[in-house]
C-alpha cells in the first residue's frame, strides 16, 4: 500500500532527476574525466622507449643497417637537437645555449660531450643512437615494422602522439614556467582581492547597519548595483576612464593638465585588475556581511557599552567575533570569484600578467586543448577548498545563534570619527560604482571614445547578421534568457518540492548536484557542455553544440539552484499539514501540488525565474565557449568588443542589457507584490 501511495511522487522525482543528471551531472563529470585524458606529443622518454621497442621488432641485420643509416644526422639542426635530447634522457642538462643558431650549437655541444666524465659520456652516447631515430626517422621506422604493430601502435609511433590516462595535465603547472607564473598570479590576485574586498564590504555593511551613514538604503542600493552588471562592465569603464585613451588619464591629466603621459601611466596592470575585481565582487561580499550584521542583536553591543567597553572594544570583542562566520564565507566567496575571473585580468593586464582562468580561456579558444583546460578548471577548485578548510579550523567554534528575530541595532550613534571614516569610504566606493555606470552610459552615445567625442546613437542601430554591432545580439540574449528563465525557475521549485516532500532515495544527492553549478566556476560548466554535447555517444545528430538550445540549457541548468534553494527554504518553514489534509480528502499528487503547495511557492518561483533571466542576460564565463556564429549572445560580444577597444558598441549593448534586466526585476517585483498581498494572511 505504502509504495502505491508513493508511486506518483517517485515518478515525479525520476522525471526531475533525469534532466538534472543529464545536463548537470554529465557535463561536470566529463570535465573531471577529461583532465586525465592526455593526448598529444609524447614526452621524449616515451618516444625513446617506443622507438626502442619498435627497433627490436626489426630483423637483426636489417636493424643494424638501418641504424647505421638513420643515426647519422642530416644537418646541424638534427645534430644539435639529438645531442640536447640525449643529454636530457641521460639525466643531464645541456650545457650550452639551446636557443642559439644550430650551426653555433653543434661545436659547443660536441665540446660539452667531450668534456663529460667517461661514464656520463657513455650514457649520452648510448641514448644518442636511438635518439636520432626517435626524433627524425620515426616515420620510416614505423613503416618498416608496420606489419608487427597494431593500427593504434603504428599510428602512435608514426605521429609521436598518443592518447592515454595520466596526470600530465594536472602536473603541468609544476613543469611549465608559464603556468606556474599564472598560478602564482592567480593566487596573488585572489588573496589580495579577498582580503581587500571583504574588509571594505565589511566596513560598508557595518556602516549600513550601525548608523555609519545617514542613508543606509541608498548605500545598499548603490553597493548592490554591480550584481546586475553585464560582463566586464567595471573593467571596460576602468579602461575608458583610466586607460591609454582614458577620459581621466588622457583627456584630463595628459592633454588637459600635462601632468602625465597616459601611454605610461594608466590603469593597466595588477593594481587595475585588483580595483576592477574589488568593485565587481564587493556586492557579493556585501550581501553576506550585511546579512550577518543585520541579524546581530544590537543588545549585545549595548550590554558591552553599559559594562564600560569603549566603542572600539565592543567592536573588537563582540561585533567582530560574532561576524566571523560571515567573514569566513565572504573571504572564500571572493577568493573563488577572483580565482575564476578571466574577464578583468584579460582586459586590464592582458597576457603580460597571466592568470590561470585566462590560460583556460586561451587553451580552449586558441589551442582547443580541452584536456589541459579541464585539468586547470579542476585545479582551480583546490585553493578555494583549502582556504575554506583552513578558515574552518582557525575559527572552529560551536555554532552560535543570536536569534534571527533578535532586536534591532543599538540606538546609540557611532562616534563622530567613525561616522566620518565610514561615510568617506561609502562615498568613495559608491562614487566609483556610479562612475562606472555613468561612464558606460556616456560611452554608449559617444562616437569613438578617446578620439571623437561627438554624440551619436549609431551604436544602438541594429544591422542584422553575425557582425551586427547593434542590438540584434541583445535580442538574441533576451530570447535565450526568456526561454531559460521560466523553465529554470519551475524546475528548481519542482526539485525543491521533490527533495522536501517526496523525499526519494538519493534526493539530497540530487539537490547537491543541482547546487554544483553555483559553487563551481562557470568555466567548468561551459567546458563541460562542450565535452558532453559536442558528440554525445559519438552520434552527430545528437550534437547540441552550435545550436541555440545549448545556450538555453546551459543557462537554465546553471542557475536553477536559486529556485531550488528558495523553494526548499519556503517548504521547510511551511507545515506539511495542509498537504496532508488535502491528501486525506483524496487529492492526488498533481492536484495537491497545483492547488495547495505551488501557490505557496510563488515567491520562490518568481525569484528563481528572475535569477535565471538576469544571469542569462549577463553571464559570460559559462557561455563564452558555447556561442557560435549563428547563435551568439550579447555578453560574449561585449567581452570581445571591449577587448578589441570597440567601447561604443560594448557600452550600447551593456546599457540595453541593464535596461532589460531592470525591466525584468520591476515586472517580477510587481507580480510578487500582487500575489504577496493574497499570501499575507497565511504568514
Amino acid at each position, binding site marked *: 500500500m505504502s509504495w502505491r501511495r508513493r508511486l506518483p511522487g517517485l515518478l515525479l522525482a525520476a522525471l526531475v532527476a533525469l534532466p538534472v543528471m543529464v545536463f548537470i551531472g554529465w557535463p561536470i563529470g566529463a570535465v573531471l574525466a577529461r583532465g586525465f585524458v592526455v593526448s598529444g606529443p609524447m614526452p621524449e622518454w616515451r618516444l625513446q622507449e617506443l622507438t626502442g621497442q619498435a627497433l627490436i621488432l626489426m630483423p637483426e641485420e636489417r636493424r643494424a643497417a638501418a641504424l647505421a643509416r638513420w643515426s647519422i644526422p642530416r644537418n646541424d639542426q638534427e645534430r644539435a637537437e639529438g645531442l640536447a635530447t640525449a643529454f636530457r634522457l641521460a639525466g643531464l642538462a645541456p650545457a650550452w645555449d639551446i636557443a642559439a643558431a644550430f650551426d653555433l650549437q653543434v661545436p659547443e655541444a660536441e665540446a660539452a660531450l667531450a668534456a663529460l666524465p667517461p661514464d656520463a659520456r657513455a650514457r649520452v652516447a648510448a641514448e644518442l643512437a636511438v635518439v636520432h631515430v626517435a626524433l627524425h626517422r620515426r616515420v620510416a621506422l614505423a613503416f618498416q615494422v608496420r606489419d608487427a604493430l597494431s593500427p593504434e601502435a603504428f599510428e602512435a609511433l608514426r605521429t609521436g602522439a598518443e592518447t592515454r590516462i595520466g596526470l600530465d595535465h594536472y602536473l603541468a603547472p609544476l613543469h611549465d614556467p608559464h603556468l606556474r607564473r599564472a598560478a602564482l598570479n592567480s593566487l596573488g590576485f585572489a588573496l589580495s582581492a579577498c582580503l581587500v574586498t571583504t574588509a571594505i564590504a565589511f566596513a560598508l555593511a557595518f556602516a549600513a547597519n550601525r548608523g555609519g551613514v545617514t542613508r543606509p538604503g541608498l548605500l545598499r542600493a548603490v553597493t548592490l548595483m554591480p550584481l546586475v552588471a553585464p560582463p566586464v562592465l567595471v573593467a571596460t569603464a576602468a579602461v575608458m576612464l583610466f586607460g591609454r585613451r582614458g577620459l581621466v588619464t588622457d583627456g584630463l591629466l595628459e592633454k588637459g593638465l600635462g601632468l602625465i603621459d597616459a601611454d605610461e601611466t594608466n590603469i593597466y596592470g595588477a593594481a587595475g585588475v585588483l580595483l576592477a575585481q574589488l568593485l565587481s565582487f564587493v556586492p557579493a561580499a556585501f550581501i553576506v556581511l550585511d546579512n550577518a550584521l543585520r541579524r546581530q*542583536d544590537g*543588545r*549585545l553591543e*549595548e*550590554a*558591552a*557599552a*553599559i*559594562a*564600560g*567597553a*569603549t566603542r572600539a*572594544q565592543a567592536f573588537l*570583542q*563582540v561585533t567582530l*567575533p*560574532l561576524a*566571523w562566520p560571515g567573514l569566513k564565507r565572504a573571504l572564500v566567496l571572493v577568493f573563488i570569484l577572483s580565482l575564476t575571473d578571466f574577464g578583468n585580468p584579460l582586459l586590464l593586464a592582458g597576457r603580460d600578467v597571466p592568470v590561470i582562468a585566462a590560460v583556460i580561456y586561451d587553451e580552449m579558444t586558441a589551442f582547443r586543448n580541452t584536456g589541459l583546460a579541464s585539468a586547470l578548471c579542476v585545479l582551480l577548485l583546490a585553493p578555494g577548498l583549502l582556504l575554506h578548510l583552513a578558515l574552518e579550523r582557525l575559527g572552529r*567554534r*560551536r*555554532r*552560535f*545563534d*543570536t*536569534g534571527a528575530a*533578535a*532586536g534591532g541595532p*543599538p*540606538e*546609540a550613534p557611532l562616534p563622530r570619527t567613525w561616522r566620518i571614516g565610514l561615510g568617506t569610504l561609502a562615498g568613495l566606493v559608491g562614487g566609483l560604482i556610479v562612475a562606472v555606470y555613468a561612464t558606460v552610459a556616456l560611452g554608449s552615445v559617444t562616437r569613438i571614445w578617446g578620439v571623437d567625442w561627438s554624440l551619436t546613437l549609431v551604436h544602438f542601430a541594429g544591422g542584422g547578421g553575425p557582425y551586427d554591432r547593434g542590438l540584434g545580439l541583445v535580442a538574441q540574449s533576451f530570447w535565450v534568457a526568456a526561454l531559460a528563465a521560466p523553465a529554470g525557475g519551475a524546475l528548481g521549485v519542482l526539485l525543491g518540492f521533490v527533495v522536501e516532500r517526496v523525499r526519494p532515495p538519493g534526493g539530497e544527492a540530487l539537490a547537491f548536484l543541482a547546487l554544483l553549478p553555483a559553487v563551481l566556476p562557470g568555466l567548468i560548466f561551459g567546458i563541460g557542455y562542450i565535452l558532453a554535447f559536442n558528440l554525445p555517444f559519438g552520434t552527430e545528430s545528437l550534437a547540441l553544440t552550435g545550436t541555440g538550445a545549448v545556450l538555453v540549457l546551459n543557462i537554465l541548468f546553471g542557475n536553477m539552484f536559486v529556485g531550488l534553494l528558495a523553494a526548499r527554504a519556503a517548504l521547510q518553514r511551511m507545515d506539511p499539514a495542509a498537504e496532508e489534509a488535502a491528501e486525506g480528502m483524496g487529492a492526488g499528487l498533481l492536484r495537491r501540488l497545483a492547488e495547495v503547495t505551488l501557490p505557496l511557492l510563488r515567491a520562490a518561483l518568481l525569484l528563481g525565474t528572475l535569477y535565471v533571466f538576469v544571469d542569462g542576460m549577463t553571464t559570460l564565463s559559462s557561455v563564452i565557449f558555447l556561442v557560435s556564429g549563428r547563435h551568439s549572445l550579447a555578453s560574449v560580444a561585449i567581452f570581445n568588443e571591449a577587448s578589441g577597444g570597440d567601447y561604443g558598441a560594448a557600452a550600447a549593448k551593456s546599457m540595453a542589457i541593464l535596461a532589460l534586466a531592470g525591466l525584468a526585476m520591476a515586472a517580477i517585483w510587481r507580480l510578487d507584490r500582487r500575489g504577496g498581498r493574497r499570501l499575507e494572511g497565511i504568514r
Partner: protein
Amino acid sequence: MRKCFGAAIAVDDVSLAVRAGEFVALLGASGCGKTTLLRIAAGFTAPDSGRVVLDGRDATALPPGARGMGFVFQSYALFPTKTAAQNIGFPLRVAGRGQRELTARVAEVAELCGIAGLLDRYPHELSGGQQQRVALARAVAPAPRLLLLDEPLAALDARIRQRLRDEIRGLTDRLGMTALYVTHDQEEALAIADRIVVMRDGRIEQQGAPEEVYLRPASRFVAEFVGQATLLEAEAAGGVPRAEGIAWPAEPGVPDGHCLLVVRPADLAADPAGPLRGEVESARFLGGALRVVLRLPSGTRLVADLPARMPRPAPGSTFALRPSAAPARLPR
C-alpha cells in the same frame, strides 16, 4: 522627561525619583513607555527633553558605561562567543581589573547567582534560566549603584520565573543595590517591588507600595490592570455605598454621590443566606482557591475566590455571596 519616536510619544512628561536601596517596578502594558524610560536611564536612548540625575549629578550626557549601572536584558544579550565566566568578567576586564581580582570576583558573583558550576559553558549550552542568571551575574559583577532590569523573566517558564524573581530580590537586598525593574506582569511587580509605578501611554498613572496600588487604585485603569476586579456602579448616601441592591461595607468618610466599587475576588465570601444571589456561570479549582463566577439577575458578573476545600457548585445552580471586606472606591 520626554521622548518621541517620530510622531509616537513614548515617554510623556514623566518624572521619577528612586531612593538608594529601593526596588522599583515599572508596570504597564506593552508600548506604555516603561522600557524607553529604562533605556533612557541606562543611556542607550537619549531623551528629547529632561535630565537623568545620579546622586545629585547630571548624567544625561554620560555614555552608558560611565554611569555605573548594570543592565539585564529580556533577551539576556550574553556574548555568544564567550563562556559564562568571560561574560561575567567582561565589565571587570574592560575596567582594567587585574586577573586575580577578576577571577575572584567572577567566582563570588557566580556563587551568589547560583551558577558556580556553569562557568566554563557557552551561552548556547545553558538553559534560559541559567542564561539569565549569567546575565544577572554580569550586571552585578562591577557592583553597580543601580541595577536596571528589562523584563528579565519574560522569556522563561512560569516555575523558573517565580524562583528567579525571588532570587533577584534576595540578591539586591543582600548587596544593598538599588533596582529599577520593568515588567508587564502585575503579579511579578506586586511580589518583587517596594514601589510600583504603573504607566499608561507614556505617563505615570499611579505609584505606591504594592498594597496601596492593589487596594487603593487611583483610576479605573489601575484597578483593572493590577489584579482581578469587578467594577460596580454605586450610589453613596450617609457614608454607605449601595450597589446591586445592597449596602457594601466601607471605610469611614465616603462622600455622598456616585462612585465605583472595586470588588476584588477576596472581598467576597460564600454565604447561603448572602444577599448577592445568582446563577453559577463557572467554578474553577485553582489549587489555592475556588474561583466562582456568579451572574447576578442584573447581568453583572461577580468573581469570588472561595476556600479551596469547599464543595464545588455546579454551573447553572443558584449560589449566594456576601461582601466580606470593604472594596476600594473610585470617585466617578
